[in-house]
């Protein structure tokens, strides 16, 4: 644990210093500003749209952070061969992976907190301008949605570490992470579709059903972390659901980083 903390802090600092982060924050800022513009075109449910835009801006910026900053944090060490210097120190490769991952998780938590603050300000300003169009609105759901966005990004980051542990370049890691992101968000809906194809009038072979079911258990189900619609309409969320989603996120992330550490320990560097 002692050796993890310095690695975590260094990784966090390295992430903060990355220039891409400024670009990502600038994008989020423009989306928060655009919120005002978009809400001006809505007839009734301005509050819902304001929450949609603000939370989507946080989530999208966070995704860019994981894809373009997070992946580089590990891949840069491999690409530039600086990993030799780190591994020459008395830490195991698995510890190295865990330290990097915890640093990235800290970076995600801090970034989502900042972006979330911006999102809340953006929603509050729209609410100030159109107070009578916020009939079904509560801050609680929005805070929960922000927390789950952070958890989903941490999970995705863990998955990117898993890919980086065996991929030959950062580009391959990026592609695999993007594919997993899309599968993770779509696999639950596709599973429902292939298990009851008659509802939409399509025919699905048994092989396809098995393939989709395998993907369902292999890839993380990222769609369960998405409660933006519930937050936007202030729909009830059970505490049990929130509990299990947090447990699921932590377990899957832990599994992915553990496997990443295992593969990384056996990897041969040129």
């Amino acid at each position, binding site marked *: 644990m002692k050796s993890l903390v310095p690695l975590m802090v260094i990784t966090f600092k390295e992430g903060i210093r990355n220039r891409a982060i400024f670009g990502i924050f600038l994008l989020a800022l423009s989306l928060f500003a655009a919120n005002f513009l978009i809400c001006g075109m*809505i*007839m009734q449910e301005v509050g819902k749209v304001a929450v*949609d835009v603000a939370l*989507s801006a946080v989530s*999208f910026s966070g995704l860019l952070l994981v894809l373009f900053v997070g992946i580089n944090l590990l891949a840069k060490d491999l690409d530039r061969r600086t990993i030799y210097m780190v591994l020459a120190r008395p830490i195991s490769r698995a510890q190295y992976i865990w330290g990097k991952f915890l640093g990235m998780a800290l970076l995600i938590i801090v970034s989502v907190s900042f972006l979330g603050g911006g999102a809340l300000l953006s929603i509050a300003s729209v609410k100030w301008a159109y107070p009578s169009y916020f009939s079904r609105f509560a801050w609680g759901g929005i805070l929960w949605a922000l927390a789950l966005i952070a958890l989903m990004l941490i999970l995705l980051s863990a998955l990117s570490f898993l890919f980086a542990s065996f991929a030959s370049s950062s580009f391959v890691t990026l592609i695999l992470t993007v594919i997993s992101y899309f599968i993770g968000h779509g696999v639950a809906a*596709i599973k429902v579709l292939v298990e009851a194809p008659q509802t939409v009038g399509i025919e699905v072979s048994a092989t396809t059903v098995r393939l989709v079911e395998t993907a369902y258990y292999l890839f993380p189900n990222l769609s369960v972390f*998405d409660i933006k*619609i519930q937050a936007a309409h202030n729909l009830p969320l059970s505490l049990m659901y929130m509990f299990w989603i947090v447990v699921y996120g932590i377990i899957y992330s832990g599994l992915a980083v553990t496997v990443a550490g295992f593969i990384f320990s056996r990897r041969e560097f040129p």
Partner: protein
Amino acid sequence: MKRTFLFLVVVAALGYGHVYSLANVSRAHSDLPVPLDQGYVLPGNMLRVFAVEYRGIVADLCFLKGLVAYGRTLEGVSSDRSIELEWQRVYNLLDVATDLDPYFFDPYYFANSALARNPSMVPIINDLLVKGMDARDWDWMIPFYLGFNYFYYLNDDYSAVQYLMVGAKRPGALSLLATLASRLAYRGHRTENAILFLRGIIVKTKDKQTLELYKTRLEALEQILYLERAVAYFRQKHEREPMDLNELILLGVIPKLPDDPYGGEFFLAEDGLIKSTSDLTYKKGKY
């Protein structure tokens, strides 16, 4: 100094060229032939997968695209077939928006207020509203809209009563809903009931343009009610049907015929009802 001047001249020339060419290319682009299948919108099931975790915001964008597409239908420059496709496209966009986020009220509200100007769309608008009624189980407005559509456009009082009763049981519902449901159950008083419906809708309408639309319809219905009452008075006094509405003026029942806000003229139909040459819609293309 000379170089700066030259730089400014070049930038000004290129800036002018940019604006001029943009105007020309936009004009030329609007003249491009548009294929008839432009009304195609990806089905909700498929879009759900592509929208990943951005279902809410994609629903908002579909709704906004629907508003833009509706603007095109109002321009009314296309052929009849194209106009029908444009209406269908607006509906498809609203349908997909509500597939992605069935709780989103605006597409239901917009479909009911704007698309209902094209009465042939009312049955599919009702399908959309049923989706909204099921999802937004706290909302009394959508069953109220359904009740109005069944009563006013489809002359189906029985279905109207069913939806009004659903609405009346929901929290915050206007007491008007229960009154209307019971009055419709007894039938009769169609125009008065329609006026009551519209007054109820107007109370909850904030959007200026939609409010104008409802107020115009309300004004037309109030004129019809005025004429119906005049005809009823004529029947009572002369114990016969008037030959036409002008006879009401000739025999001093009313001073003059009221104006139809839709631009038509009121007349007494063969079935004894007051109707207008406008059919209470704007001329084609204007809706």
